[in-house]
């Protein structure tokens, strides 16, 4: 019974399906967690190759958590206590508010402060927060991806939000 399931991951179309379903989330997750300290694309590729090597022993149901833990472990080895600073895109559109030089300066300082505060979050908090707020994943979806409970996801988001707010409010 389980043998037939194992065979499935070795089949090209099942493997392709797993890629289609999880590659982007895996990429985003690795990026938010580890920033540019690791190459998210390489990381995704290695995790999938590991899965392919082990396709006879990893069942279809376990493929997702296999991918996420391989990616996670590989990155942890590289990372070792380095601070993760995420890059931001161009500054917000200034057309939306009245601009005076003072305001522009404040916005810029806020952005830099935000970048720092984001770096101060633990990798887990940061990735959970960003997957929810930026990638639009629901609490349940994140729970499924990371293999934790929905409650734990909510707790992480709450404590990420609170930490960001506390650091930014001093501003």
């Amino acid at each position: 019974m389980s043998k037939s399931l194992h065979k499935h991951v070795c089949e090209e179309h099942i493997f392709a399906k797993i890629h289609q379903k999880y590659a982007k989330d895996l990429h985003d997750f690795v990026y938010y967690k580890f920033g540019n300290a690791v190459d998210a694309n390489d990381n995704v590729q290695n995790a999938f190759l590991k899965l392919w090597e082990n396709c006879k022993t990893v069942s279809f149901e376990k493929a997702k958590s296999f991918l996420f833990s391989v990616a996670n472990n590989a990155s942890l080895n590289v990372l070792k206590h380095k601070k993760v600073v995420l890059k931001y895109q161009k500054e917000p559109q200034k057309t939306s508010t009245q601009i005076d030089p003072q305001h522009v300066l404040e916005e810029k300082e806020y952005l830099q402060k935000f970048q720092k505060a984001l770096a101060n979050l633990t990798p887990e908090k940061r990735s959970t927060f960003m997957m929810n707020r930026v990638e639009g994943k629901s609490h349940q979806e994140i729970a499924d991806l990371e293999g934790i409970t929905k409650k734990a996801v909510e707790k992480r988001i709450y404590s990420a939000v609170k930490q960001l707010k506390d650091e930014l409010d001093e501003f």
Partner: protein
Amino acid sequence: MNKEKQIESWINGSLKGQDLEDFKSSETYNSLQKIDHTALLFKAPDFDEEASRASINSAKKAVNHTPSKSLYYKISGVAAILIAGLFIAFQFFGSSTVSYGTTLNEEQILTLPDKSTVYLNSNSKLSYSDSNFKDNRILYLEGEAFFEVQEGTKFIVNTPVSQVEVLGTSFNIKSRNNFSEVDCYTGKVKVTDFQENEAILTPFQRFSNYNGKFEVSKFSNQDPGWIGLRKSSFNNTPLYVVINELAIQYNVNINTDSIDTNTNFSGSFSHDNLENALESVTLPFQIDFVIKENQVTLQKE
């Protein structure tokens, strides 16, 4: 309820009614909105799924599962590779992404595989996966489009900041980096934005999220007003949203330092001439404009 408790229940969605209203007018909520809005600027780089799959496919050929020894195995090995190759090619074409894009002053009318119609306004992008579209009607939009949806399975349009879900109906979406406007013309439309605000719209209701401020309001125009006319049309939309759209359409910087952009604008601007477009937007507010190459400055008359 103390602040911490409020934030906690706002996150897990249990804050409702008056408590929610109270919370939304609090200072705390304001700074949380700012956090959400700023977080968007830290979005992960785009992920190229096709490229990823291609590189994995070529790398995994090196991984060998069953070393073959006899001629018989060799032959069957070749056959297997051929079949696998064909299969991958089939998969590749079978699930290809279809994309359409328009430039300035260009409009496209598209018919989707399910016979739904999309009118794509200028400077907009629409894509969807071709495989089994009829059972899996998911599209991605950046810019503005009007949809006439054939009845069938769930029809979902994702934009950078919201998700719109319908059964069979017509509706218009405007979506750029920091705002999104969904207008329902017929039927019912369900909208969820990136902050998980959710609303079910009936005809002539609008869902808007400007810079993180979410609202459901009414609008009065009978049709989106831009189809076939090469223009952008607005109904009671904040001026800064209109100016933002104009800047994107014409790829110019617009300086609004000295004017108030929080008033609302109803009307349209054309996509064929920057000067005319600026005139249509500024005239009602007695605002002057100066164009210097890519830089436009707006000021009080």
